């Protein structure tokens, strides 16, 4: 019997015991459906994050901080604890957050590194509250987002190069603020567009317990994104806020930064990035690109997806036992037939192939139907979520399907089915035609 014939016969044989085949296919279906869906979840979220990164356009940005600070945030080496060095300056922010600070000298060191176009030191600011024209005060978080990102705005525009705008009624130009959309209603604005152009007041405390207020001009309203609900401030506003927060302190304390936002020269390659990172390391600093940060997020998501995949694979292994069981029954039932075929000259290898092909076909049926329905279900779920609970996260499709990955799932299940089929197939191949044809 030739191979296509064997496959054709095997396919025909699977339909001989329809109910049994159906139940086995169903077990595989459940596993393949789950696996495709969990994979889809991984692809969906990862590609959303990738798209967000691409839209931010932060490929040429790197944030730099002292190595210890970077390590504390989960990036960098696993060398163990560092020895205490009294020379190092630590900075304590309002909320009790402590980190090793970047000095003005460090900033100059960064500037001297080849391939770096611009350095923008970042000072940590921790405002107490924000309010609009004496209304209710709300807590406010300032996002550490570096400048130079293409931000997703619901209204208005991003801040100007100078970071300040003239506002009627104020002597000094006011620093610019991009307000998260979740603050629009609480602060008493009718719509994001209504908030644009308004002046809000930010309260900050100095180390002596005195509160100071800084006025800021709302230049734009941020759409909700994965990157949290923090406001973004221009450098000028940040400096003004920092000044209020450290009023009365000597310059030695105030002339330090949480880190620096660095813009790389255009055309920087991955090798350049590595070299810059190495040079920073020599100076006890560390650089993280946006890619590094997202890599960390992605690996967390991948980890979760694999845990879910693990469950699906357990289901598939259980289904594999179903295949073994089904085929063993089938071999048992067809003892006579197998004996007859062997008596008529069908080789053991062909018999093995016949039953293996049956197993693989059952695997194919279950996984193909499972994957297909998972795609349909996944798209439906994504649609519903995108219209409902996740409508704020624009462009997020919770589940997306990569054809290659779906194909891989189907192939995986077929391989699994083949492995499950080897036991019954070998049993069939070993069968003695005399025994099979013996008259009871």
């Amino acid at each position: 019997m030739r191979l296509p014939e064997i496959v054709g016969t095997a396919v025909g044989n699977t339909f001989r015991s329809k109910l049994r085949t159906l139940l086995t296919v169903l077990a595989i279906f459940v596993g393949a459906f789950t696996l495709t869906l969990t994979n889809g979840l991984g692809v969906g979220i990862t590609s959303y994050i990738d798209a967000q990164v691409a839209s931010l356009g932060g490929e040429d940005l790197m944030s730099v901080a002292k190595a210890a600070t970077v390590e504390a945030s989960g990036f960098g080496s696993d060398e163990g604890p560092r020895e205490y060095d009294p020379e190092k300056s630590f900075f304590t922010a309002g909320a009790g957050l402590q980190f090793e600070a970047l000095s003005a000298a460090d900033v100059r060191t960064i500037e001297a590194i080849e391939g770096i176009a611009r350095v923008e030191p970042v000072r940590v600011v921790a405002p107490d509250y924000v309010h609009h024209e004496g209304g209710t005060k709300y807590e406010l978080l300032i996002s550490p987002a570096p400048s130079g990102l293409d931000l997703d705005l619901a209204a208005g525009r991003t801040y100007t190069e100078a970071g300040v705008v003239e506002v009627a009624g104020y002597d000094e130009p006011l620093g610019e603020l991009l307000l998260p959309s979740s603050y629009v209603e609480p602060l008493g604005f009718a719509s994001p567009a209504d908030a644009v152009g308004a002046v809000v007041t930010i309260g900050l405390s100095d180390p002596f317990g005195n509160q100071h207020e800084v006025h800021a001009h709302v230049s734009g309203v941020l759409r909700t994104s994965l990157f949290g609900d923090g406001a973004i401030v221009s450098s000028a506003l940040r400096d003004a806020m920092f000044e209020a927060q450290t009023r009365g302190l000597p310059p030695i304390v105030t002339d330090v930064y949480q880190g620096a936002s660095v813009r790389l020269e255009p055309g920087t390659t991955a090798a350049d990035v590595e070299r810059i990172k190495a040079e920073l390391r020599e100076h006890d600093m560390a650089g993280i690109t946006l890619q590094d940060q997202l890599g960390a997020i992605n690996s967390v998501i991948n980890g979760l997806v694999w845990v879910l995949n693990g469950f699906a694979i357990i289901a598939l292994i259980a289904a594999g036992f179903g295949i073994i069981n089904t085929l063993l029954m089938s071999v048992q039932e067809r003892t006579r037939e197998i004996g007859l075929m062997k008596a008529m000259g069908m080789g053991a290898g062909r018999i093995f192939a016949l039953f293996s092909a049956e197993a693989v076909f059952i695997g194919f049926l279950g996984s193909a139907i499972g994957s297909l329905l998972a795609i349909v279900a996944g798209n439906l779920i994504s649609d519903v979520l995108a219209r409902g609970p996740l409508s704020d996260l624009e462009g997020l499709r919770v589940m997306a399907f990569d054809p290659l990955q779906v194909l891989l799932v189907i192939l995986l299940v077929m391989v699994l089915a083949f492995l499950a089929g080897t036991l019954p197939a070998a049993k069939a191949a070993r069968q003695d035609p005399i025994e099979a044809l013996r008259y009871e």
Partner: protein
Amino acid sequence: MNAQPRNILEARDLVKSYGTGEARFDALRGVSLEIGSGEAVAIVGKSGSGKSTLMHLLALLDSPTSGTVLVDGQDSRALTTTQTNQLRNEAYGFVFQQFFMIPSATVLENVMLPLKIKGVPPRERRERAMELLRLVELDDKAGNRGTNLSGGQKQRMVIARALANRPRVIFADEPTGNLDSATGEVIEDLLFGLNREHGITLVIVTHDEELAQRCDRRVYLKDGLIVDERGEPLGVPA
């Protein structure tokens, strides 16, 4: 009566034992036998005398404990598994008392099975199978399930299947054992017709003396040994 000088089948001192030690049972205890091409030979004996065992060994379905089977004068032990399979597929046809068929398949599909195993293309095997069904007058039942046929029809279908690859030998184990005498006679006529007209060698296992008498020659088996028609060991005068 046989013009061909060589024997198509030859058994040399066949011994077949089942089990070992205390449980050992010798089904055949040294059987030698020659079958000429085109001959119709009956293997006769009581139930349990070793007829089926002998037939299985001759058809290379099983291997003897000792002794050997020669095919066209060639020692079958020298054949590879593939060659043995090919021989059984192409040169031998099988007819069993219990018919043996694929119950879910149609009559046509059952007849096509040896052709399919051989690798004959679908159109060709369909034509050949239909031709054979016409020969056994079952062409009107081609699309029926094999299990829905009567006993005689089943055995005709099995004969058609045995003929699929134009075999040189047909091994028939009690071919009429499950049939009434009228139906049995139709099957016998069919088999002997094939023997006469196509020179197909017949090896028929039976305990039916009437059927045995229609063969050219009878081989009597008793307790795993060849005996004469009176049941006496060979060489002992009457």
